[in-house]
Each structure stands twice: as C-alpha cells, then as structure tokens.
C-alpha cells in the first residue's frame, strides 16, 4: 500500500511538473506570437501608407498634398517606432511559425538597426517632398523602396 502511494506521489509530481512546463511554454509562445503579430502589423501600416504615396506617384489616385504629407509623416513615425519589444528571442524563422525574420536580425543587430536608421532618413526626405508636389513625391519613392529592399535582402528569410 505504502509502495503504491509512493508511486502515485511520484507520478503526480511528474505530471504536475510536465503540466507546469507546458503552461510555461504556452505563455512564452503567446508572448512570441504577440510580438510577431505586432511587428507584422507595423509592416502592414508601412505598406498602407507607402501604397497611398505609390498610387499617387503612378497616377492611379489623384495627388493630394495634405494626404501625401500625412502618409509620409506616418512612414517616418513608423521608421522611428521603438522596436525594443517586438523582436524577442525565439521568434526567428524556423523557430516560430508564420515569420520570415532571418537569424541575422539577432546575430547582426547593429546592421539591422542601421537599416531602420536608413529608412528614417529616407522617409524624413520623403516627408519634405510629399507635400511639395507630385514630381518631388515621385522622386522620393526610389530611396524609400531601396531602403525596404536592402533590409529585406539581408534580414528577411525565403518564403515559408
């Protein structure tokens, strides 16, 4: 009887420990998922604002100086958005699902920060250009696009 009780105790402790680990994991998982979602939402906001400027540049929507200035200001704010929290460990491609964040974001954090700084500079110039006239806006898009591409080339993994 005592032996049986002993076995039960051991099993119970084991189960509790396993359950605890599982709960702990799902907490970490939830935080990682939230960070991935947040940074993807940031990318979407960037694509949205850049889209308004890009369509004006293409002539598919009419140029509006006020709207263009607002969109460019948003882009600049997003480039300066504090990302201390949105790139936690364990959220790189391969370790978390639905992300293409390359390992270089963590192994070369300074280079990654540099790319964001470049975007801040390009969008600062765009902020001044977008509200001026259509030609100035058109001329400012190349540098912003190049900044997107340069960062994606180095720090975005292949399609999942």
């Amino acid at each position: 009887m005592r032996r049986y009780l002993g076995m039960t105790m051991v099993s119970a402790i084991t189960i509790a420990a396993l359950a605890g680990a599982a709960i702990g994991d799902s907490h970490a998982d939830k935080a990682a998922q939230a960070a991935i979602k947040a940074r993807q939402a940031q990318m979407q906001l960037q694509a949205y604002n850049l889209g308004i400027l890009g369509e004006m540049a293409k002539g598919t929507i009419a140029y509006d100086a006020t709207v263009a200035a607002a969109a460019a200001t948003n882009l600049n704010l997003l480039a300066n958005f504090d990302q201390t929290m949105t790139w936690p460990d364990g959220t790189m491609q391969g370790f978390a699902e639905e992300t293409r964040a390359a390992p270089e974001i963590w192994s070369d954090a300074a280079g990654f920060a540099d790319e964001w700084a470049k975007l801040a500079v390009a969008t600062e110039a765009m902020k001044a250009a977008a509200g001026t006239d259509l030609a100035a806006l058109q001329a400012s898009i190349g540098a912003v696009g190049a900044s997107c591409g340069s960062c994606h080339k180095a720090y975005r993994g292949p399609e999942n």
Partner: protein
Amino acid sequence: MSALLRAGVIVVCLGAAIGWGVTRPAPMPTSIAPEHQASAAAGEIIFLAAGCSSCHAAPGAKGEDKLVLTGGAAFPSDFGTFYAPNISPDRVHGIGGWTLEEFAHAVRNGVSPQGQHYYPAFPYAAYSHVTDADIADLFAYIRALPESDVPDQAHKVSFPFSIRRGLGVWKILFTQSDYVVTADLSEEQQRGRYLAEGLGHCAECHTPRNALGGLDRSRWMGGAPNPSGKGRIPNITPGALDWSQADLKVYFSSGLTPEYDSAGGEMAVVIENLSQLPEPDLAALAAYIKVLPAVK
C-alpha cells in the same frame, strides 16, 4: 582490312573531322565600331543594364566594392558549379590585356581570347544582341574600374560537360541571334526588347530550360524552377502577371510591388542595377513586358 571495316573507319574519321570543324569557336571580329568615340559614362548605363557586377563583383560586395570585378561568385547548376571570373582591368588576372575585339568576341560569341568556348553561365547568347557602340562604351567603362589581383577559381564541372569543345554543339543548338518577340513593335517597345532580351538577359532566369540547358523559346519569360533548388522564378508574361506599365516602372525604380512589398531574392539585386537606369529605359522595359506573348 575488310571493305566494310575500312568504310566504317572512314565514316568515323569523317564524323570526327566534321565535329571538330563544327565545334570550332567562331573567328574573332576584325574591328569593332571604328568610327565610334567610346564613352565610359555611356558604358556605365550598359554595365548597369547588363548587371555585370551582380555576378563579377565579390560575393556579397556592397557599395563601391561592387565596382571591383574580382569574380568568385558560385553558380550551381545541373551540370556542375561555375565560378565567375575576374574581369577587372588587372593585366594578369583580369582583362587588362584584352583588345576591344577580344572583349566583343567574349561578350557576344562566348569565346575567350585563347579561342576557347565559355560556359553559358555567362549569358553571351543574350549579349549577342548588343551593338558595337555599346560594347565599345562598356569596354571603356570596365577598363576604368579598379584592378583586382584575385586569381580565377576553376569550374567544378563533370564529364562530358568538362569538354569545352562540346559547347560548340550547344551553341549551334541553343544560341539564336534573332529576337524572340518579333511582333510589330513601337520604338519604345523595341528599346525594351533590346534591354530585356539583350543586355538585361531576363530570360536566363525567367524562361524554362530543356534537358541540355537550352532556353525554351516557346515559353519565353513563362517562369522556371529556381536553379538554387528552392522555389520558382515567376512567369512575367501577361498570362500570369497583371501589373500595369506604371506598376512595372515603379517596381524597376524602387523594387516596390503593387502590394507595396519589396522585391526579394535575386530580383532585389537586379533592382539595385535597374533603379539606376534612366527613366525612359525603365518605361521601355515595362512596355516590352506588356507585349510578351502570354504563357499560361
């Protein structure tokens, strides 16, 4: 020796002789653009449109380093791995000792100054369209770039592809000097065709190949497996791509897609070059893409 055997020997010898003749590299052109005043500034545009540094700069080179054509980039394929050579103006390890005629022969006919066939990892079939004047300008530009004394790396190609003479047959089968898109084109579309089918050598990635590595001209720009093994290079004909000319122009100049994502993979590297071309050239390239025969 029986008559039959003798006849057999004669046939084999004759075949070998014809084969040897047929696979012989074409002779070098005698004179390239003698009246043309070569301009390195104009050559820079040709250099960018042809994407020379994307293959011939050191792998991963950035900024000014992209102008040091030191070679070394690896190109894996079904036939082996090819390494881009040093084409900097270094006299020993690069092309500093070449004449303009030798350069033209290499770029357009895929034949080295020593009379050897180059492997078609070097897209000379596309470059065969390049004009004498553009070749002369390009040569002037490359000759003014920094020298690099890095020696070439030998290709890792297995038998029978290791016999360069065999490339003579490949050239007969798969290099055609005529354009693929032969519809009645506007001046802008013709310029786009020169940029896309010639200098830009877009088809090298965007057109599928047959078992011997020749481009399937019936599925021109219709998309192909990525030679790296992962993913596919997209179909860019109107059969699959519905981007407008304005969309394409913004894409070439900024890398931004109509969804405002940015170009990825090898295309990001291509955009780094294209985005430096004059605006009318980007419009021309876009105009050509819009008249491609649709591939489903």
